């Protein structure tokens, strides 16, 4: 996709966004953000930095929250939550096609389930699926609607580390095929670097850091560029002593836990 076209017609345009839950202070304080069509943006930030508030604003789920500003989003927006939010009383396929008004809704649902690797599980109840499978079904439910914008609020936060890695691969593949603009809220720096075209760090309700990820091809944690980017993002987030980066010991870096300590 030509980059000049992206700049001319953003999929998401946020201008001077203010949101506050009480008089004490704003959660978002004049935030500006553009996301190009098909662009994958990861949103990092400490707990309380306003990343979920921003996502909910874009999703149109912040009725009753005081604030001003301007938000332009595409017509078709899908949301993936941290929990899969599958209705427990509906079979997986019925969950995927819920509210889908099309004659071929069932076929499209089946195709979407096949895409996320859940072919054959159409008739299963949600609780019969594992946590990762439930989140796959939730992804299918979003993608079957052909979203121009996919909003994901820590979608892999509740999954175990191994499942999370598999889900990263799946999400990248799906996004390459469907090309939605993506805003992924996460507190996992590695996840942000592995998945996104661009990483934004939110602090004090404004964008503090905004950078394209210049890594090519397969992004590996073994790549020194990866480590440098990771260290820089962590320092933006106020984490200097990154003991996870020590050789021979590397797990997901969860800022929420460490920022709190």
């Amino acid at each position, binding site marked *: 996709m030509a980059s000049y076209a992206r700049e001319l017609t953003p999929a998401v345009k946020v201008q001077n966004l203010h949101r506050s839950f009480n008089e004490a202070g704003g959660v978002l304080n004049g935030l500006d953000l553009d996301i190009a069509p098909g662009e994958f943006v990861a949103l990092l930030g400490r707990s309380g930095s306003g990343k979920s508030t921003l996502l909910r604003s874009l*999703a*149109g*789920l912040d009725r009753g929250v005081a604030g001003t500003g301007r938000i332009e989003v595409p017509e078709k*927006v*899908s*949301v993936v*939550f941290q*929990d899969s*939010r599958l*209705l*427990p*009383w*509906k079979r997986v396929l019925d969950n995927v096609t*819920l*509210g889908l008004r099309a004659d071929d809704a069932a076929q499209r649902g089946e195709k979407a389930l096949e895409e996320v690797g859940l072919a054959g599980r159409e008739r299963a*109840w949600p*609780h*019969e699926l594992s946590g990762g499978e439930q989140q796959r079904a939730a992804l299918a*439910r979003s993608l079957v*609607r052909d979203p121009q914008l996919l909003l994901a609020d820590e979608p892999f936060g509740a999954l175990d580390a191994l499942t999370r890695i598999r889900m990263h691969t799946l999400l990248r593949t799906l996004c390459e095929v469907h090309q939605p603009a993506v805003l992924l809220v996460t507190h996992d720096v590695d996840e942000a670097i592995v998945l996104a075209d661009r990483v934004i760090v939110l602090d004090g309700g404004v964008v503090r850091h905004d950078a394209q990820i210049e890594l090519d091809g397969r992004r590996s944690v073994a790549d020194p560029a990866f480590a440098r980017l990771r260290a820089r993002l962590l320092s933006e987030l106020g984490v200097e002593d990154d003991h996870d980066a020590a050789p021979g010991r590397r797990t997901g870096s969860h800022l929420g836990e460490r920022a709190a300590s």
Partner: protein
Amino acid sequence: MTTLTAPARAVTTAGVEDVRPVRRRLSPGTSIRFGGLIGIALLLAAWVVGSATGLLDPRTLTEPWTVVETAGTLIENGRLQESLVTSGIRAALGLGLGVLVGTVLALISGLSRIGEVVIDGPVQVKRSIPTLALIPLLILWLGIGEPMKVITIALAVFVPIYIHTHNGLRSIEGRYAELAETLDVTRSEFVRHVVLPGAMPGFLLGLRFAVTSSLLALVVVEVINATSGIGHMITLASNYGQTDIIVVGLVVYALLGVTADSAVRLIERKALSWRRTLAS
């Protein structure tokens, strides 16, 4: 190094070793098959023995074989079936009306704030008045005919249906409503796919209470004044000291109750199959 203690148990079956430490069991252990029926059989046996040895005066409680005989006679001359049909229709009409009214009120009250304001208060007040205390007023308004009986049963039934369905509606998690909003479903789709199935467990719990309430109300309205039905049969027998007929009537009530309860359980199994698999 710790010393090894001797195994608590060493079982050897067909030459295959099975040595394992076994703790003393504190829980009641595995359940007995058909356990529920054994207690009933014991009680029946005590009745038979008591009657046969003369320990149990027939004026207090007739011999079981007399009850069986009386039941045979009552079936032969058609009185039992006739009473059963009358009582059954009464209970079914009252139950049906009460379930309908309770469900509709719960839906209105659960889905709109205005509905809640108008409906919930009066129902909570009605809940604190025992339905049976309303009978004198209902007799004045409706007379002593069938409408009074059906309405009394319906009044007893709609309260548990309302309370539990409303509770079920309110306990549907807000996150599901949020999800439905992000999927752009219409209001009617929301009711059909989220609200009704979500409130179903509450409704079915209410239904089980409602069935019990309907039978209780049925007995009371039939005993107070009736010219037909099981209750009438029992009242008449009481006047003539015929304990055998009373027992037959009680057995019929018990059968009605058990049948209705099993029917609700069956509905529950069908409607909540998404939950059953979770339990198993």
